[in-house]
């Protein structure tokens, strides 16, 4: 057990990376394995600075490959362990993430997106959306929370641990360098004070009982001999995933009820959309927001309902339509026309969106 630092509601002015370290402690995380990569470093820094008080564990590994795999080792050993990464680190950590998918290991990772592909920028992007949802040589049996600010970072980092341990799918807090480095007021709390109890961890290896007396030895594998044997396992996973999706999928709507132009955005871009919507509403333009919070799995029913109500939709991202690609697939059969505002690796401002929506009023999008 670790010592929890936040015992009562405490308002602090923190960077997002600091918030994530505090949230992991609040969620009773016991061990972090990590490797330096910007813009997520301060998660590790804060975690390490707090170690004398928390009495948690930390290992700085030789790369993100080992950070991912040693996190899996720590989880199998029964610890609530986690890691964090970004950009090229997220790319090479996919190896471990796909093992987590295949073996249903409750892996938690904070991804602070930076520009891509390759080294690109260390600053900001939403270009790891597809990678985080579908990276690895599998089907994307993952849960991805996309946060839009510091309170989200705190709330969803705590939630990620419970989602991962409850459903046993790798779970991500997907944020970005802006959220990681920016300072905002945030309310830290003990999850227990909000009625949240942490799902207990268990030892998959060296669990209770003696081998040969109380139990058999455990043989965990991610290799299968026959195609059909694999498919049977994966069909079971898909069934679990679909059932889980109904319970886990989250979204946020802002003035979407009567919106004629519906902006679909995730993460911090959704915050710019809120600003733009207020400005547009003041000008008499009925704009609204649909923000998927879980970008995988998506809340499909409310998404389709909101899109059906609107006259036009606008996809906007700091990427070239990575979320849009996932969303459009779920909108099959609807014929609401859409327009796009994509800025690859660059922030989308409220002003950008106001101008874009105004242009959509003048020249509506076509099907």
């Amino acid at each position, binding site marked *: 057990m670790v010592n929890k630092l936040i015992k009562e509601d405490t308002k602090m002015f923190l960077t997002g990376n600091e918030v994530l370290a505090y949230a992991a402690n609040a969620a009773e995380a016991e061990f972090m394995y990590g490797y330096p990569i910007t813009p997520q470093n301060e998660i590790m820094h804060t975690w390490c600075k707090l170690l004398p008080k928390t009495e948690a564990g930390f290992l700085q590994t030789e790369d993100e490959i080992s950070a991912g795999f040693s996190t899996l*080792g720590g989880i199998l050993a029964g610890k609530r362990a986690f890691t964090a990464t970004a950009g090229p680190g997220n790319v090479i950590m996919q*190896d471990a993430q796909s093992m987590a998918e295949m073996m249903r290991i409750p892996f938690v990772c904070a991804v602070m997106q930076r520009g891509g592909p390759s080294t690109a920028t260390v600053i900001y992007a939403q270009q790891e959306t597809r990678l985080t949802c579908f990276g690895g040589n599998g089907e994307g049996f993952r849960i991805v929370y996309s946060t839009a600010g510091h309170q989200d970072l705190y709330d969803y980092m705590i939630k990620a641990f419970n989602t991962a341990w409850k459903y046993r799918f790798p779970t991500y807090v997907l944020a970005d360098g802006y959220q990681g480095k920016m300072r905002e007021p945030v309310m830290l709390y003990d999850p227990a004070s909000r009625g949240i109890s942490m799902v207990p961890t268990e030892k998959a*290896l*060296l669990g209770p009982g003696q081998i*040969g007396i109380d139990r058999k030895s455990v043989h965990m594998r991610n290799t299968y001999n026959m195609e059909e044997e694999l498919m049977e396992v994966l069909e079971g996973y898909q069934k679990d995933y679909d059932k889980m999706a109904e319970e886990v999928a989250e979204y946020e709507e802002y003035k979407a009820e009567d919106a004629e132009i519906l902006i679909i955005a995730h993460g911090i871009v959704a915050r710019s959309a809120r600003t733009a919507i207020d400005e547009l509403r003041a000008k008499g333009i009925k704009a609204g927001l649909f923000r998927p919070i879980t970008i995988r799995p998506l809340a499909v029913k409310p998404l389709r309902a909101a899109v059906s109500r609107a006259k036009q939709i606008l996809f906007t991202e700091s990427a070239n339509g990575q979320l849009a690609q996932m969303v459009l697939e779920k909108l099959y059969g609807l014929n609401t026309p859409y327009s796009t505002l994509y800025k690859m690796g660059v922030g989308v401002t409220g002003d950008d969106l106001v101008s874009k929506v105004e242009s959509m009023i003048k020249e509506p999008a076509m099907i």
Partner: protein
Amino acid sequence: MAEVLTLPPNLPKSQNAEVGASKFCPGCGHGITLKALANAVDELDIKQKTVFGCDIGCSLLSWNYLDLDTVQTHHGRTTPVIYGVTRANPEAIGIAYMGDGGGLAIGSQHLVNAAVRSERMMIVLVNNTNYGMTGGQMSPTTMPGQKTETTPYGRDCEVTGRPAKGAEMVAAIANPEKSFVARSSVSNVRKLQSTFKKGLINVQNGGFSFIEVLSICPLNWRTNNVDTLERLKTMEEFFEVKEFLQGKSEQ
């Protein structure tokens, strides 16, 4: 009618009797190595606290071979999974089992850093001088002149470099106070077992152990019994069989 005499197999307690016939190719060195390892675990009576991790390649076939809590990982990644376990569970004795490709090529960064950090675990690297599972390609330890699928005219060290000497490399970078480093061979099973025992004792004493096992691959070597053992002798001349560092391997 001739009487059929059946004797129960003489298996170590730490070997999984339910596996039945060995899944390794006829003549493979893995069965010998794993049995010696299981016997060493039995001798030290550490079955209940040992975690065995296996790599990809032929070594992955050991995923249910032992009656130990086992996790099979990805190619080259057994070392970080096992030190992930032992960092999180200080009671656990971790064994990472891999081939020469897993340890010295795709997972070499983990070997180097586990040695430098004196991770509390034992790495067993079974060196059969080729990638067996994938059909016999050149590996870091392929001998000079050795024919493999990717060196069909023999390994040319001018082009591919010299064979990697894992035990010497690890001995050069590991902390001598905390590290047991040895090279052993499947040609001497008793010695192999006692080497494993020393390695495990060193881990029990909080240290890092690395044991390279010279092994045989008659299928990919395309050798008969006599030639297989001849080849192993040649390997033992090239890769020195000895203890490089003793650490705290005395009981």
